[in-house]
């Protein structure tokens, strides 16, 4: 293409017009802090780990686990605790490994993939954590309903049919998860929209 060759010739002849920074100006630059997207992703990811894992701690502090023991669910409580910390540790380790893999000296494609993977790990953690919390809540509710007289005692007082309780819980949970998904789309979108677009563009095979 003639035009591009012309551009190349011109491009090369313009080196002299480029700005020239002095040794001191460059030196000052290396003392400054980065404001790259990787730094933001790291910060937000750490905040998310702290936030989501603290839900478990909050539930503990609120004394809900004591209730489980009264109900005769001690074993369930121990297993779910081990599982939830296992999940947390597994994802933190994966996140750390992915984060360490981010190197600006890799090719553009590998770099983008590693950044996206780091973000994906956090996203997976959040969903696994929510599913786990929902599942344990469901198990406890079921147990209370079918194996103890807690529910019967309560419903006799308030006169609420069982299906209303179940439908309401499912609806509340659905709305909660829906809102969260929306929030995620926004936060995740802002952080990685450009990155994803570029990654797809790079991977795309032209025909």
């Amino acid at each position, binding site marked *: *293409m003639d035009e591009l060759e012309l551009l190349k010739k011109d491009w090369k002849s313009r080196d002299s017009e480029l700005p020239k920074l002095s040794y001191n100006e460059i030196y000052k630059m290396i003392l400054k802090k980065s404001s*790259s997207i990787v730094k933001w992703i790291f910060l937000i990811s750490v905040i998310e780990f702290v936030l989501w894992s603290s839900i478990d701690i909050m539930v503990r502090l609120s004394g809900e686990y004591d209730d489980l023991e009264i109900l005769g669910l001690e074993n369930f409580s121990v297993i779910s605790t081990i599982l939830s910390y296992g999940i947390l540790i597994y994802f933190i380790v994966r996140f750390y490994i992915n984060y360490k893999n981010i190197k600006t000296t890799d*090719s*553009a494609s590998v770099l983008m993939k590693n950044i996206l993977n780091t973000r994906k790990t956090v996203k997976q953690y959040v969903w696994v954590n929510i599913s786990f919390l929902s599942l344990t809540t469901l198990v406890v509710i079921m147990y209370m309903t079918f194996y103890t007289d807690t529910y019967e005692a309560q419903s006799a007082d308030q006169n609420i049919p069982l299906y209303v309780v179940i439908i309401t819980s499912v609806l509340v949970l659905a709305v909660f998860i829906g809102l969260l998904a929306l929030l995620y789309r926004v936060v995740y979108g802002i952080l990685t929209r450009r990155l994803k677009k570029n990654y797809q563009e790079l991977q795309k095979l032209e025909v």
Partner: protein
Amino acid sequence: MKKELEHSFVTNLEQNQNIVHKVCRIYTNDPESHNDLFQEITIQLWKAYPKFRGESKFSTWMYRVSLNTAITLYRKSKRSIKTSDFDAMDFKITAEEYDDGVEQQLKLMYAAVKQLNDIEKALVFLYLEDKSYKEIAETMGISEVNARVKMNRVKTKLKKILNP
């Protein structure tokens, strides 16, 4: 030890700063954004420098880190202006250098390059810097065939922008 490293890095970068400026030129439209991106690239180069073992030339290594920063790590600041405003600001062409036709054509070419997406800009940049398809493919992390195909597509796209 740290002082030595700082000194060798700053000296190297000072000598090769043109590469970074040229990346900034392709990816930004005003002097402020240019400086912003230059700053971020410098930080990323400095962060990666302790692991630079000299297997490749300093300049080759710089192309990779600089482009990666521009495409992937850099968060575009809000103040970057619209393409239509940049026009002759950054690529002033003096009348005595070229005849009118060539001058006009080059102006349009630079404007057309500015309209490309991030990946296409990287391809054009490496092409303008006389990199082989093998090097382009390695820098971008795609196959050589894909690099050639993509480059051809960019050429077609540029043609379309120029002759709508």
